[in-house]
């Protein structure tokens, strides 16, 4: 039995030391990482909602509303993570939706900006693991511009699925993923507008 305890203790000790060391490293890096992330988010938001000087995270408000109108089952907008509303001098200029659709190589982190009147004002891909040279082209400005100007009310789809957005050649799946994110952002925007939140 002593032997058993000894083994337990050794593993405990090693884990404890490791945890301590990691906690230390985490401690000194945490703020920087958070700051980096915040900065990155800020940049992304600004790029998709031009003209806003301040963004507020209003996810909870929107989600509460969404819960009120949906039947309480599965989330209706599974791709939308956060909703940031952009203000200029206290006046709302647009909304940025942070979405995570699934692409060919894994989840894609994208932010979709929608103006007050329901037009896509910008799209940016924050993080992805798509195939270089093919799916990775979702980061290209050329591709992203194909979504700018689309309006709420019409489903967003790639042309192969009968929609209006030309997919990247040879990368239908990645394109489709981005299109679905834009589609959900517009639909959520429409819902929220209908309910008169802003």
């Amino acid at each position: 039995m002593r032997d058993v305890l000894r083994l337990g203790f050794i593993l405990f000790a090693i884990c404890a030391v490791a945890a301590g060391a990691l906690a230390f490293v985490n401690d000194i890096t945490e703020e920087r990482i958070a700051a980096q992330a915040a900065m990155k988010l800020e940049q992304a938001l600004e790029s998709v909602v031009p003209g806003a000087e301040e963004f507020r995270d209003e996810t909870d408000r929107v989600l509460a509303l969404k819960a009120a109108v949906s039947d309480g089952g599965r989330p209706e907008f599974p791709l939308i993570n956060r909703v940031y509303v952009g203000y200029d001098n206290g006046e709302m200029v647009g909304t940025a939706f942070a979405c995570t659709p699934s692409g060919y190589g894994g989840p894609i982190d994208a932010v979709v900006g929608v103006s007050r009147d329901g037009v896509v004002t910008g799209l940016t891909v924050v993080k992805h693991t798509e195939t270089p040279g093919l799916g990775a082209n979702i980061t290209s400005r050329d591709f992203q511009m194909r979504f700018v100007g689309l309006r709420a009310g019409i489903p967003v789809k790639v042309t192969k699925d009968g929609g209006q957005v030309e997919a990247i050649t040879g990368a239908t799946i990645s394109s489709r993923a981005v299109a679905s994110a834009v589609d959900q952002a517009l639909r959520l925007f429409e819902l929220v507008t209908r309910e008169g939140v802003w």
Partner: protein
Amino acid sequence: MGEILVIFFGGVLLNNFILSRFLGICPFIGVSKQVETATGMGMAVVFVMGVASVVTWMVEHYILMPLGLGYLRTIAFILVIAALVQLVEMVIQKVSPVLYKALGIYLPLITTNCAVLGVAILNITEKYNLLEAAVNGIAGASGFTLAIVLFAAIRERMDLAPIPESLKGFPMALITAGLMSIAFLGFVGFRLKELFGVM
């Protein structure tokens, strides 16, 4: 039910751990000389990955998240998995010496089977619930088993073939896996959700 089927077939066919995610290559090549041992290994992985998915999910949601210790995820998960595998190894050694002998040195390899850690982390990043996580774990392992059993049968056949000397063994195993992977490209873009009526 539809969701579960989507996760399951997605794991087995679309995102096959071996053929499209590069997870678990070492045991895939090491334990694929005979169909029988490959099947045994596959079963062991199914068991370990199923249990590991559940346990790591619980560790994440009941210990790490409440305590705000997200950065310990990797280390905590791998610890859980390593201990689990070793337990399984001891149990098998005692209960079925035949199976133990067949799997031999490869049982400890399940620990370093990236597939197990991979699935545990994926369960969290994909935001699965407990049931979905368990299914995802079993699905990933079933995909592994499918690939390894198919490959073992192919390999038994290749044993008799006059393969160039310098390609024998490992390189040939990789190339065959590559060709299998080409075949599995056929599942790319498969609309499982539509098939199972989950939109």
